[in-house]
């Protein structure tokens, strides 16, 4: 009896952790039914990934900023500015496409350093600094562009936003499945399983493993299954979008940084209690500064992806991106007061927004109703989180 009760308790505790993923699955299932199966069509899955990639990139940086107890309202403007600058580098300065990409990332880092300087070393609240940044960089974008759009961009540059991995090696027509994608999917699955098995072995060796074997296996099968399912869907269409590979690498790297690196721990410590962090020898100013530099680089990357996808850099690009990224972080469980949040949560939150957008568009729901529903989802998600925490506190 005791073991059954323990099992139930264990599941209950885990369900709280994975609630957000269940919500995503429920929403996917819901729209799959409501759209009569259109949602999970291979072409549409590819579309969801590409369409939301830049928001997801922003959400990674944003959740880190929020964990540290700050906010960044400027990312949409920064993305637009970097897109415009890269356009200028190519069309006016005659730089090659790769130099424009590197240059764009450097511009992003400088913008981040600018904002980080005001937040960390002058001590102005990030809300104000980035509100100013939102106006500053929107204005700079328009000045750089001189009110014009820059278009078109070189084909190579555009691959970042809309390209696929080695499409010419295996043209879609030659086979029902695109084998590069299948290969990538299998490699990703093998890496995931081996990493999980090794981590478990390490914990067992130290005598720390408290996770039942059954749950571990269910988790592995589930995660592996999801990766393979997405692989299959992508391989049935045009293959792996390049931006998905970029995003996958970012998620893995930043999850490791936030969970396991000294820097990531300092971010959580800083957001949880700034004074305690300072008195533990953590250089809080440095942490803040580099967080904003990092956000600048990620905003730049998002800007490059977006510009490549649209094949143009315009003065209005990236409008309201910041709000989608902030919403993704909060839906994904980040705390308004800082100290709490995860990269994978923010990605899930971003996907929930993305699937909602896409599903409602497929159903022909107007943008007015879409905004209304998204607002409601954000409010309810955070309300649920607050309620859940209060209940746990007793």
């Amino acid at each position, binding site marked *: 009896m005791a073991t059954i009760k323990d099992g139930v308790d264990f599941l209950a505790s885990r369900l709280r952790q994975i609630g957000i993923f269940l919500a995503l699955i429920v929403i996917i299932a819901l729209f799959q039914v409501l759209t009569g199966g259109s949602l999970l069509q291979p072409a549409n899955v590819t579309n969801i990934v590409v369409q939301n990639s830049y928001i997801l990139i922003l959400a990674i940086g944003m959740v880190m900023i929020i964990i540290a107890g700050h906010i960044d309202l400027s990312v949409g403007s920064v993305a637009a500015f970097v897109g415009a600058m890269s356009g200028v580098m190519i069309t006016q300065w005659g730089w090659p496409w790769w130099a424009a990409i590197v240059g764009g990332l450097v511009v992003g880092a400088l913008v981040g350093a600018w904002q980080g300087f005001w937040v960390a070393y002058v001590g102005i609240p990030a809300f104000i600094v980035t509100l100013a940044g939102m106006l500053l960089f929107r204005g700079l974008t328009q000045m750089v562009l001189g009110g014009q759009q820059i278009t078109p961009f070189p084909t190579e540059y555009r691959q970042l936003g809309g390209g696929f991995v080695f499409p010419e090696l295996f043209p879609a027509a030659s086979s029902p499945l695109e084998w590069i994608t299948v290969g990538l999917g299998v490699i990703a699955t093998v890496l995931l399983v081996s990493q999980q098995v090794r981590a478990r072995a*390490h*914990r067992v*060796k*130290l*005598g*720390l493993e408290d996770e039942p074997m059954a749950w571990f296996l269910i988790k592995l099968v589930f995660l592996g299954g999801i990766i393979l399912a997405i692989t299959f869907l992508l391989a049935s269409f045009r293959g792996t979008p390049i931006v998905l590979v970029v995003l996958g690498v970012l998620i893995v790297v930043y999850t*490791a940084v936030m*969970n*396991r*690196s*000294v*820097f990531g*721990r*300092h971010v*959580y*410590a800083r957001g*949880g*209690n700034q*004074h*305690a*962090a*300072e*008195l*533990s*020898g*953590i*250089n809080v100013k440095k942490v803040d500064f580099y967080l904003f530099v990092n956000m600048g680089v990620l905003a730049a990357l998002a800007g490059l992806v977006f510009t490549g996808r649209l094949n143009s850099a315009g003065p209005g690009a990236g409008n309201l991106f910041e709000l989608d990224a902030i919403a993704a972080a909060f839906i994904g469980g980040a*705390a308004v007061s800082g*100290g*709490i949040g995860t990269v994978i949560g923010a990605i899930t939150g971003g996907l929930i927004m993305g699937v909602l957008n896409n599903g409602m568009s497929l159903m022909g729901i107007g943008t007015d109703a879409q905004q209304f529903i998204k607002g409601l989802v954000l409010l309810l998600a955070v309300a649920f989180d607050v309620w859940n925490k209060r209940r746990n506190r*007793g």
Partner: protein
Amino acid sequence: MAHTILEMRDITKTFPGVKALQNVNLQVQRGEVLAICGENGAGKSTLMKVLSGVYPHGTYEGDIVFENEVMSFSGIRDSEKSGVVIIHQELALSPYLSIAENIFLGNEQATRGFIDWDKTNLEASKLLARVGLKENPITPVSQIGVGKQQLVEIAKALSKDVKLLILDEPTAALNDEDSAHLLDLISHLRGQGITSIIISHKLNEIKAIADKVTIIRDGRTIETLDLRKDDISEERIIKGMVGRDLESRYPDRTPAIGEEVLRVEDWTVHHPEDSSRVVVDAANLNVRAGEVVGIAGLMGAGRTELAMSIFGRSYGKGITGKLYKNGTEIRAHSVKEAIDHGLAYATEDRKQYGLNLIEDIKRNISMAALGKLAKGGFVDAGRETVVANDYRKSMNIKAPNVEALTGKLSGGNQQKVVLSKWMFSDPDVLILDEPTRGIDVGAKYEIYTIINKLASEGKAIIVISSELPELLGICDRIYTLSEGRITADVPIAEANPEVLMQYMTKEKD
């Protein structure tokens, strides 16, 4: 003829999985001061929350009889209407409102919805006179000290025609002078027929002011001692609280003192906002391996400021002076540098400055020395758990595992997490600022034992404390601090409270 104003009968309060209170019985006579004693977690605060309606009628079993009537309070406002007012440890004043506005907050002096400011300020000054606070009622609360804020809280209670005043740890944050004034005031109010219940850890205060003391242990009332009739010693009260005799409140130690580890020379610190104010004035002190050195001083003498300025200049501006570690001068201009030189500072304010309360035990313990667990910038989470578990066991931190959030632990266990954090950073010099503040007697003994163990390992230890008996009980040597100056260096053999107090109050010549 005294008669019973309050009786709590068979109060039982259950939280999911825990019986916080079990058949608690309590009686208070009109016009007396009742003290409630018990270790942290014994159920004192829960009992007061039941009494004041924070836990409304129906969420507990048993009866509250107030002025011969069974009460069923539905909330704080309800209990206040009957004349039961609770003043919490953390004061509930709005810092930017004036004293008068705070006194009448929620009870505004208004006619037809508009506030009558003359009446508000006039009534407030009458109330301030009653509590003996000489301040203009229009002064913002943030501009007066904690001791005076406490008096404003009492004035606020008086404005509500209080019959039963409950004070939760009223002197915990006060200096001796303010404490004495507050205790006087409570006696004075007793003369006016106001009954008080005081929750306190400070046994000398209880002895000084209370008529009776009711002892609570593990959610039950153990006994009520009448302090007016019998000569009850502090040891007798402690015995009731912990359920056993403490042969001594301080564990024995045979000091094994070695070479000098840290020396501070001509240390002067200025106030961070007002650089003309000298907070620490040319202080000289040293501490040797295996030695426990105390710093005694009244509130505002500059104890914490001295300690924090030494610890990587985490307090103050315009700092001059020299630090020597093992005889060579060191530079510790940041907390990081101080930690690298083997210094550690455990703060007096665990919640604000010591812990990340929304994080678990293991990540708090590793916070100051994460580098020791990291390779190539990445933390070995498994080893971190093992290390934290070792501390949980050796320090006797009461928690199911090291994944428990520190915000949910009791004060004593939180302090053990803070100490674990600094022990893991493996310092040579530990500065402990009020290491037993807000901690119950049993846990205090454990903390003293830990301090002794660290000293026997050859660490140099500096203890700052407001409680002189504590310093006399655990130190080898005590520095006294007055107005930022070190006024004496007293060997323990020559130290007693009178001598220390003399030096602590010594003014500038």
